[in-house]
């Protein structure tokens, strides 16, 4: 009985500590300090989440002015079966004359396919989350990715979740969310969830900035 009480107390203390840790990494409760300065020309790894149609085009427009000399490696995440996005990412990199060794395009399974039964959804969500963990883990390229850019597809929530997992254990990954240019007055579903979870939350219409305190507005970015 005594052992049981000790075990229970330990569990409670650990959950409490985990809860505190979670609060401390959540940017909405604790605005993130500026990242530590990075020496020029150091290795950096950016991960971008691409999603069907408009989201992919917007994401690639956002990335079009990034200085390749400051981003030595890029990972693109596409949902399984979205070969159009994968092709767009490939074209994007090849028109910038990137070396084939400086980027990768990773397919992750969908958290839930359209029409999939709700019973099998937890398992497919877990599979999706695990592959996000692998992708954010950096795939053996200098550890956890440095910065994550996403703009709205459902898979972005999973990817940011994976980032939080690494941040919980001390990783310095930064997350940036850019709400779609198509969203004038209201956030998308992903936006409403990620508003609380990402380091930088950027909108492209001034009205959204008025409504959401954490949001930043820097004009139209795409």
């Amino acid at each position, binding site marked *: 009985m005594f052992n049981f009480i000790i075990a229970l107390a330990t569990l409670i203390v650990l959950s409490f500590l985990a809860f505190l840790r979670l609060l401390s990494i959540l940017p909405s409760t604790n605005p993130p300090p500026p*990242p530590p300065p*990075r020496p020029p020309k150091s290795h950096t790894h950016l991960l971008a989440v691409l999603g069907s149609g408009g989201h992919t085009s917007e994401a690639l*427009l956002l990335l079009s002015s990034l200085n390749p000399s400051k981003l030595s490696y890029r990972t693109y995440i596409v949902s399984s079966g979205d070969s159009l996005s994968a092709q767009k990412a490939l074209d994007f990199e090849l028109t910038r004359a990137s070396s084939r060794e400086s980027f990768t395009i990773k397919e992750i399974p969908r958290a839930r396919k359209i029409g999939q039964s709700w019973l099998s959804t937890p398992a497919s969500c877990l599979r999706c989350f695990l592959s996000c963990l692998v992708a954010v883990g950096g795939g053996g390229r200098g550890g956890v990715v440095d*910065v994550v850019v996403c703009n709205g597809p459902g898979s972005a929530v999973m990817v940011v979740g994976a980032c939080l997992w690494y941040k919980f254990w001390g990783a310095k990954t930064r997350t940036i969310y850019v709400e779609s240019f198509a969203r*004038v007055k209201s956030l998308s579903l992903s936006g409403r969830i990620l508003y609380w979870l990402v380091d930088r939350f950027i909108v492209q219409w001034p009205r959204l900035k008025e409504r959401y305190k954490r949001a930043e507005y820097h*004009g139209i970015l795409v």
Partner: protein
Amino acid sequence: MSLPPKTALITVGATAPFPALISASLAPAFLSTLSSLGYTHLLIQHGLTPTNFGGTPSGQSLLSSLTNLSTTSPLKITAFDFTPNLSSEIATSDLIISHAGSGSILEALRHVKRLVVVPNEDLMDNHQKELAGELEAQGYLIEGRVDNLPEAIKKAERATFKHFPRSGSEVFGRIVEEELGFEAEG
């Protein structure tokens, strides 16, 4: 005497078919308005394939009217389902009539084209209408409906449009560099 070529382009994008806009763009009243405004060519990107339209009778008849275009109109009409380089078609057109997808709208605005945007009222989550409305209010385009296309293109032909700001992707690039911890340059 032959007229100088003047091209109108109708595009429904790649994500969802928009048969109502295609029907409207084949209506005689619309075609004659186009000719009266001096247009000589009409390109229709309709996105309709025998499979994606579920074989419905209305879809079938629309598709067959696109493949057997009547020659009563003086316009030279070209219809295709998709094209990998819509961008170059936009670049060479004088008027764009587009669905309200943000990608197509951006593309047309960046090419500084006369633009009529028709939101698809059949789509469930209609924030597209918000975007078209806001951009019209700011003077970048004309918002049209499938039942008023002739009026909308007349309006677009007379309108003086504001120039759309160029991409702010450099600003975004700086935000990413900030988050990586690189010192700002200069």
